[in-house]
C-alpha cells in the first residue's frame, strides 16, 4: 500500500519538476501522440492564424500537406499569398470557429452558395465567408459565386481525400446573419460590408455548441472518409478584441479555456481525435511569455519552433531544411538568452516597441482578426 496516489508518479506529473524546474525548449513528455502520421499521409490544415504557421512549418518539414487549390504557377509567392493561395490546404482563409468549419463542410457537400453572403465595399464584392482571399474584392456578385462554387468542389475533394486534418481552434466569438444563422469569419464592416444590427448579431459559442459542431463536422466528413483522423490544437494567439462587455483579458481566458476544454473532451472521447498541446507551450506560465512578440499576442519564431519540435519528436518526421532548422535554433537561443537576461535583471514582460509591433504586423500571417486593431481607440 502506498501512502498517496501521487507516490511513484513521473516527474512530468508534478508542477515543480514538470514545469517550474523544466524549460520549454527542452521539456519532455508534454505530448504523447495517439496515432502516427506517416510521411505519405495526406495532411490537411485549417483554423485560425496560428494554423497558417503550423501549416508552413509542416510543409517545410516533409509532411505531405495537401493543397487542392494551388497557386497559379506563374504567380510569385508574395502575390499568391495576397490572393489566399498556399496558406491552407484549400483557399478558405482563416476558420476561427468550429461552426464556420461545420458550415464549410456542409456547403462543400451540397455546393450551396448564397448571394446574401456577398458583401460590398467601394463597388467591389467580397465573399463574406472568406473575405481575405481577394485583396481588392471581386468584380461582381456573379464572379464571387462562381469562384465559391469552384472552391467548394475543391474543399469537398480535400475532405474526402485527407488522411489527417490538423485544425486549430481560434475563437468562440463570431458574428452571425440573424436570418440565415450563417457565421462569418470577420465582423461585418471590418473588411467589407456594413454593420447593420438588424441583420447581424453577435454570438459567443458555448461548450455544448462547439463540441456538438465538431462532432457534426467529423460525422459529415467521415461519411465520405471514414478513416480520417483529426489533430486539434488551440491557438495561443489571443483575441484582438472582444465584442462582449468583458475586459479582453477576461474574455480571452474564457474563450481559450472553452476551446481547450472542448478539444480535450473530444480527444478523450474519440480514438481518431488527438489533442496537441501547443497552447500550453506558449500561453501558460511555463513559457513566461517569452514565446510572444512584444505585443504579447503574436507568437515568435522561437515559440513556433519549440511547439513544432515537440510535435515532430512524436511524429518522427525530421525533414526540415537545414536552413530552417538553423534559423529556428538561433531564434530559440536568442529567446532563451533574452529571457535569462530579463530574469537576471529581475524584469517582467518586455516593454512594447510600437515600431517593432508594426513590423511584426507586416510580416505576420494573413489575419483578418487583426484588422479589428484598426478600430481600437
Amino acid at each position, binding site marked *: 500500500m502506498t501512502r498517496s496516489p501521487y507516490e511513484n508518479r513521473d516527474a512530468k506529473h508534478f508542477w515543480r519538476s514538470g514545469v517550474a524546474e523544466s524549460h520549454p525548449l527542452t521539456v519532455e513528455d508534454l505530448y504523447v501522440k495517439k496515432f502516427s502520421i506517416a510521411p505519405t499521409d495526406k495532411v490537411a490544415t485549417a483554423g485560425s492564424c496560428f494554423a497558417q504557421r503550423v501549416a508552413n512549418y509542416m510543409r517545410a518539414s516533409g509532411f505531405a500537406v495537401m493543397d487542392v487549390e494551388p497557386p497559379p504557377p506563374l504567380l510569385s509567392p508574395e502575390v499568391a499569398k495576397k490572393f489566399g493561395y498556399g496558406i491552407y490546404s484549400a483557399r478558405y482563409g482563416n476558420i476561427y470557429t468550429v461552426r464556420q468549419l461545420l458550415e464549410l463542410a456542409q456547403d462543400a457537400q451540397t455546393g450551396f452558395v448564397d448571394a446574401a453572403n456577398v458583401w460590398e465595399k467601394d463597388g467591389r464584392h467580397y465573399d463574406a465567408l472568406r473575405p481575405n482571399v481577394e485583396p481588392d474584392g471581386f468584380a461582381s456578385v456573379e464572379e464571387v459565386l*462562381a469562384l465559391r462554387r469552384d472552391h467548394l468542389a475543391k474543399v469537398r475533394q480535400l475532405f474526402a481525400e485527407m488522411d489527417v486534418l490538423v485544425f486549430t481552434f481560434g475563437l468562440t466569438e463570431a458574428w452571425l446573419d440573424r436570418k440565415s444563422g450563417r457565421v462569418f469569419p470577420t465582423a461585418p464592416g471590418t473588411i467589407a460590408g456594413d454593420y447593420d444590427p438588424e441583420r447581424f448579431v453577435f454570438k459567443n459559442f458555448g461548450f455544448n455548441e462547439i463540441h456538438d459542431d465538431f462532432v457534426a463536422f467529423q460525422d459529415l466528413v467521415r461519411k465520405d472518409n471514414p478513416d480520417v483522423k483529426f489533430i486539434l490544437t488551440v491557438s495561443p494567439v489571443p483575441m484582438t478584441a472582444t465584442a462582449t462587455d468583458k475586459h479582453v483579458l477576461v474574455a480571452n481566458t474564457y474563450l481559450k479555456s472553452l476551446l481547450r476544454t472542448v478539444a480535450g473532451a473530444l480527444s478523450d472521447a474519440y480514438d481518431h481525435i488527438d489533442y496537441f498541446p501547443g497552447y500550453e507551450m506558449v500561453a501558460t506560465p511555463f513559457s513566461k511569455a517569452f514565446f510572444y512578440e512584444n505585443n504579447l499576442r503574436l507568437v515568435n519564431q522561437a515559440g513556433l519552433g519549440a511547439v513544432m519540435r515537440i510535435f515532430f519528436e512524436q511524429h518522427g518526421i525530421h525533414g526540415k531544411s537545414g536552413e530552417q532548422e538553423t534559423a529556428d535554433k538561433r531564434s530559440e537561443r536568442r529567446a532563451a538568452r533574452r529571457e535569462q537576461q530579463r530574469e537576471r535583471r529581475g524584469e517582467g514582460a518586455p516593454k512594447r516597441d510600437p515600431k517593432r509591433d508594426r513590423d511584426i504586423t507586416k510580416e505576420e500571417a494573413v489575419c483578418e482578426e487583426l484588422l479589428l486593431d484598426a478600430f481600437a481607440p
Partner: protein
Amino acid sequence: MKPYSVCMIGNSHVAALKLAWSDRAPKLSEGFTMTFFSAQNRLMNHIEAKGRALVSGSEELAEKLRYTSDGMDRIELETFDAFVLVGSGFGIDVLRLREECGTIAPGGGPDGGNVPLLSRACFEAVVETYLDRCTAMELADMIRKVTPAPILLVGAPFVSERMVEDEPFSAQPWLKDRAFLEDFVACCRAAATRVAKRRGCEIVWQAPETVAMPGFTREAFNKNPVRFKMRSTGQPEFDAKHGNEDYGALMLTAILERLDAFSGGRVLAATSA
C-alpha cells in the same frame, strides 16, 4: 525638318510589317528611316546589352540581324528616335494564356478541366507576370536603361479563327461564348497595358478590321502569311499564328500614325487638302 529614325526589333511577326513596308508603305516624310532587326523567337533572347548598344550574343543571331537590317548586327540605341518592339513573346494568345495562366468566371469554368478558375484580378496578375517575362519586355528594359525614347509594343496577332474549327478546340464551348471571350481578352489587355506602362511603353493594338471574334484573327489575314525564314523560299498557305501582307499593311499604318503623333509630324508626309 530633322529626319526621324525608327528601330523595329522583333521575331517572325516583323515579316508581315516588312513586306508591307516594302510594298505598301504610305508616303513618308523626307529622311524618315525604319531599320529592321529580326530573328526567330528562339534567337531573340540572345540579344544582350553592351554599353549603350544591343548586341548579338550568338553568331547565328548576328547573321539574322545583319540580314534583316542590311548589314548591322549591333543596335546603337541612341541613334534612334523611337523603337517598335514586335511579338517576341508579347501578345494575347487566348488558347495559350488560358492553358498556362488559367481562366475566369463566368463562362470559363464548367468545361475548364484542369485549367484553374481564377478571379479576374488574379488572372490579370498571372497574365501580367507571364508578359513581364517575355523577350520583348527584356528588350524594353534594356532600351530604357539607355534612352527615354518612345517605345511602341506590337503584339503577335491573335491566333486564327480557324483554330476554333479544328480539334481539339472545336468541342470547347468557351470558344463559342463571345461574352466570355470579350471578358477574357479585356483582362489580358488590362494586364498587358500595365506591363507596358511600367516601362513607359505604348501598345499598338491589333487593327479591329483584322479581328474576328475577340481574341481571334480573321482567317483572311492568315492566308499566304510570311514569316522570317532567311533561306526558305516557300511559305505555307495558311498559318494560324502569323499575319499576311494585308495584315502587315494595316498594322504598319497604325504604327506609323502613332509614330507620327509622337514625332510631331516627322513620319508621314504631309498631305495636301
